[in-house]
């Protein structure tokens, strides 16, 4: 014991630590540092993204909120915008509705704009809905109120501005196709092809879920002679499928086929009602990026951490709707909006859709007579310096 050097006295301890009773303060070791770094890093990224997403949303809300402070008289109704929502290929519609609720709805409520959402669960529903509305208007049946409703609603001042929001490339395509079909197509559904010896035999038509089975169905109907030449042509194919008695489980009637095919757009005559209209309601396409697949995980992770950008983009487009700033429709640019979204659709889904000739995979064609009357919502140069408004600037 006597050969050891004298022990140095222990270093003076911080009286605070002594009072608290903490024996030693240490920095975390290597493993703990890695763990804490990862956890705090990821949490920090999520927190940063969420905070900026809220700020971006708030920025656009503040820009349009002055519209909500305008007075509304007792007999006036607020502006109503139509929102078309379709599920992304291979997934449920809740996802698109969530996208709408997160990024588009807050700005619409901040601007005190009412909306009417048209949901579609199958391909072609939006197109049929839009085309049917137009056909009703052309036939003159748009006013379907009864006496009491007329008495109640005649004094009300409806808003004439309107507007259309298409969430996702599929809904956008269907809306434009529906517009073409409604205005350029016939008012009555085309008769399915008949064979000679057509008998009034109903009930052999398979009502499948998919509109893509229509080709086989039409040929089957021709064999069975579903509709005789004497039957009134105003009976749409949909109701004939519904009225037949079947002992099978009741499948939903399939969506009616377009009344005019895309190849016939050019040759269709211009209806008189269309000539009187100088412009349709302006539309806007709101991107709805949605990736599926295991190999896409890195991209999906990146998107998970950068949702603030998406909030900004969708916010800007919705603000343009709220502020009613639009530019004329330019086919070259506007038909290509959302092509990157189409590239994200699952490959398998696209292949089956191409085989069946589904609506979403068809060519995107808009007739000139419709295109010259369309407008697209976009923020003007003064509102937001970064988005170009002239065609030349957009092509850069």
């Amino acid at each position: 014991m006597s050969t050891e050097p004298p022990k140095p006295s222990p270093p003076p301890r911080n009286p605070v630590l002594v009072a608290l009773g903490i024996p030693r303060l240490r920095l975390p070791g290597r493993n703990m540092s890695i763990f804490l770094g990862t956890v705090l890093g990821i949490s920090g990224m999520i927190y940063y993204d969420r905070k900026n997403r809220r700020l971006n949303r708030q920025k656009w809300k503040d820009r349009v909120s002055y519209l909500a402070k305008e007075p509304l008289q007792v007999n006036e109704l607020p502006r109503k915008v139509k929102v078309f929502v379709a599920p992304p290929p291979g997934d449920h519609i809740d996802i698109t509705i969530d996208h709408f609720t997160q990024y588009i709805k807050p700005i619409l409520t901040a601007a005190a704009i009412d909306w009417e959402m048209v949901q579609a669960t199958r391909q072609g529903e939006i197109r049929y809905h839009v085309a049917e509305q137009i056909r009703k208007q052309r036939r003159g049946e748009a006013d379907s109120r009864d006496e009491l409703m007329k008495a109640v609603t005649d004094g009300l001042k409806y808003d004439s501005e309107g507007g259309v929001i298409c969430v996702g490339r599929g809904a956008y395509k269907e809306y434009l196709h529906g517009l073409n079909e409604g205005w350029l197509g016939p008012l009555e559904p085309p008769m399915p092809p008949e064979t000679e010896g057509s008998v009034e035999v109903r009930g052999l038509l398979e009502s499948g879920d998919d509109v893509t089975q229509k080709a086989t169905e039409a040929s089957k109907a021709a064999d069975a002679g579903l509709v005789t030449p004497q039957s009134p042509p105003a009976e749409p194919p949909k109701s004939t499928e519904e009225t037949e008695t079947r002992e099978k489980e009741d499948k939903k009637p399939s969506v009616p086929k377009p009344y005019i095919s895309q190849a016939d757009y050019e040759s269709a005559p211009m209806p008189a009602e269309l000539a009187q209209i100088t412009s349709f309601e302006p539309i806007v396409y709101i991107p709805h990026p949605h990736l599926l697949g295991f190999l896409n995980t890195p991209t999906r992770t990146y998107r998970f951490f950068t949702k603030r950008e998406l909030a900004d983009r969708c916010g800007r487009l919705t603000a343009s709707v709220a502020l009613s700033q639009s530019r004329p429709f330019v086919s070259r640019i506007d038909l290509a909006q959302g092509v990157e979204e189409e590239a994200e659709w699952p490959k398998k889904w696209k292949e089956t859709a191409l085989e069946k000739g589904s609506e979403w995979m068809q060519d995107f064609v808009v007739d000139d007579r419709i295109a010259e009357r369309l407008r697209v919502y976009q923020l003007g140069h003064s509102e937001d310096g970064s988005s170009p408004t002239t065609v030349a600037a957009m092509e850069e």
Partner: protein
Amino acid sequence: MSFFGMGARPPATGYDENKINGIKGEMLMIQQMKDKASLICLEKCVPNYYSDGDLNKGESNCVDRCIGKFFQTIKVIGTEMQKQQQGGV
């Protein structure tokens, strides 16, 4: 309500006491519902301090939706209570 003069009996085809009470009760219920709805939606949608007598667009929309949700809730509650009553009986 019946102007038959003092002390006159209601006619044989006249008012049924029970029916009138029933209708009175319903009117009371509807009135209560309306009062409740106005109170709740006013509290939620219209701020306490205001400078203008008219409702602005945001408040209008808010009140519209509030009343819509209110009556939808009442309908749902009504059907549920009916179901429970029928189930219990």
